[in-house]
């Protein structure tokens, strides 16, 4: 019965989200779009971070190259469909190439290499003025005709988020998802029962880069512009914060974390300019008092089937 109740709540939430533009003003709709873009991005990171146990410190690269590929292709050729396919495809290429080198490392070495490779991509995008627009980025990116109003763009980010989140949910609960969790929790033990951990981890990175690439397309739909800032390491760090605040050992954690972070920063920005300070305090409190995140904390409190302190079990 519990399962059914969950599904009902979920369906009501989805219906509410789909009909939100009827009741909310355009600013709130924009904030909601940002939440869906960020939530998908955070989910893509958590596939490797929370489930795969890999310290991916520079996930923003995949979002960035996807958003840039779409924008540059559409600007030069005008074909939207190919641009939309090209974005995630380029992200997957980057994910595969980086992943081949990354899976040979673990722990902090893994994390350091993600920063090195990611900042290399950022530096090239930032400096290659003639191709990428350099520090200015691309101030206005054309979108297909069916995405001309803010409501249409909102619905697009929502639908992309729903489909991708469903796919990711299926992936983490598939046999492959279990293998990924196994390598994340105890790589040596997984290896000893003859799991090819490198292949599993590489597949995880590639899948994660694919979904980050999709969130890149979603980002362009939301912001209609790209700049090198989306590839900077601070953007990656902020998404890490969203994952942690929500809870990295639960599926819903990154979604809740993104929503909480964006709502708080949006509200706080109306009263003060020190947003980073507020974010820092939130992170500090979560790390010290709620290391399992909001979702993990609630699950522990209500004693849900998946007790957060037992980590997946």
């Amino acid at each position: 019965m519990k399962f059914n109740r969950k599904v009902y709540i979920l369906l009501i939430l989805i219906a509410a989200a789909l009909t939100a533009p009827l009741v909310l003003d355009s600013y709130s709709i924009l904030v909601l779009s940002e939440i869906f873009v960020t939530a998908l991005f955070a989910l893509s990171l958590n596939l490797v971070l929370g489930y795969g146990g890999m310290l991916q410190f520079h996930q923003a690269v995949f979002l960035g190259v996807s958003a840039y590929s779409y924008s540059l292709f559409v600007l030069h050729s005008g074909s939207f469909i190919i641009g939309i396919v090209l974005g995630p495809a380029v992200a997957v290429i980057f994910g595969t190439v980086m992943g081949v080198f990354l899976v040979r490392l673990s722990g902090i070495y893994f994390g350091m290499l993600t920063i090195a490779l990611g900042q290399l991509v950022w530096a090239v995008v930032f400096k290659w003025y003639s191709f990428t627009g350099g520090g200015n980025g691309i101030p206005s990116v054309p979108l297909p005709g069916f995405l001309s109003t803010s409501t249409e763009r909102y619905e697009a980010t929502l639908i992309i988020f729903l489909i991708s989140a469903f796919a990711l949910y299926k992936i983490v609960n598939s046999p492959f998802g279990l293998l990924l969790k196994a390598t994340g929790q105890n790589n040596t033990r997984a290896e000893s029962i003859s799991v090819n951990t490198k292949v599993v981890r590489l597949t995880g990175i590639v899948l994660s880069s694919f979904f980050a690439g999709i969130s890149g397309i979603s980002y362009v739909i939301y912001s209609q512009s790209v700049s090198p800032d989306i590839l900077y390491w601070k953007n990656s760090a902020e998404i890490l914060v969203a994952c942690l605040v929500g809870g990295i050992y639960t599926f819903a954690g990154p979604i809740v974390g993104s929503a909480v972070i964006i709502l708080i920063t949006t509200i706080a920005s109306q009263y003060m300019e020190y947003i980073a300070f507020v974010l820092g305090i939130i992170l500090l409190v979560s790390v010290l008092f709620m290391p399992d995140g909001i979702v993990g904390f609630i699950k522990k409190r209500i004693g849900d089937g998946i007790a957060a302190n037992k980590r997946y079990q």
Partner: protein
Amino acid sequence: MDLSIVASYLLIGISRGMFYFVLAAGLTLILGVLKIINFAHGSLYMLGAFFMYTFIGIAGQGTGAFFLSAVMAAITVGFISFIIEQMLLKHLYGKEHLMQMLLTYSLVLIFGDSVEMIWGTDYYTVAMPKLLSGSYHIFGTYISKFYLLFLISGLLTVVLLWLYMYKTKLGKIARAVATNRSMVEALGINADATFMYAFVIGGVLAGLGGAIASPAVNITSQMGDSIIIKVFLVVIVGGLGNIWGSLIAAIIFGISESFGVLIFPRFEIAFPFAIAAIVLILKPRGILSK
């Protein structure tokens, strides 16, 4: 290319490398002993520069005042590190390293805005002291005297760290903790105290780095963001926790940067990342690894 130009660029590169080493040494010490990346290292560097600005405002413009302020700034930042370690980081020992790293990242966010609250959003500059302004005539070209400051600070860091690591009992324990923590604790030694020393020494070095860089940079709340990544890369290339590897890597970075400007100016900022990526791919455990 003229040989004298090559020589002068080499000297500038080595000096810059020594400056990177001052920052990298602290980071790699913390990495080796605590096994975490201290993201706040760049913020401590920034705080060092801001304290330098304030102390120079009190102490005046003389050369003596400059060095006194630099020492004071480093000590102040060291004290802040002590508070961070005792009040926050200490509670996370034994938890996942990711949590400790994210704690230091939260400090990046908090310090960045706190500095703007205290000092405002303007950028500041510190005047070059008399002793260090002007330039030397070496190898037929002119080299700013200021690079001497980097060179001396770097050498001083090398000597002091060597004394700490190899000539004191604390250093011996720190090296032992870096290799096998549980063995050290089994011998009845409190490893947490070693963590405190490593973190505070790291903080002092970051503050010193900010103080000596202050005449050469604009002092802003963002000044730590880009340098911290570069210093991370130095630490990776040198091998995590390997101080002498970091020294070599820092000098490689300094030289490649000064020649990068000469040969391939447009992608100069991409150079260090490319070096780090190549080293990590070929020798994942750093240049000094077997």
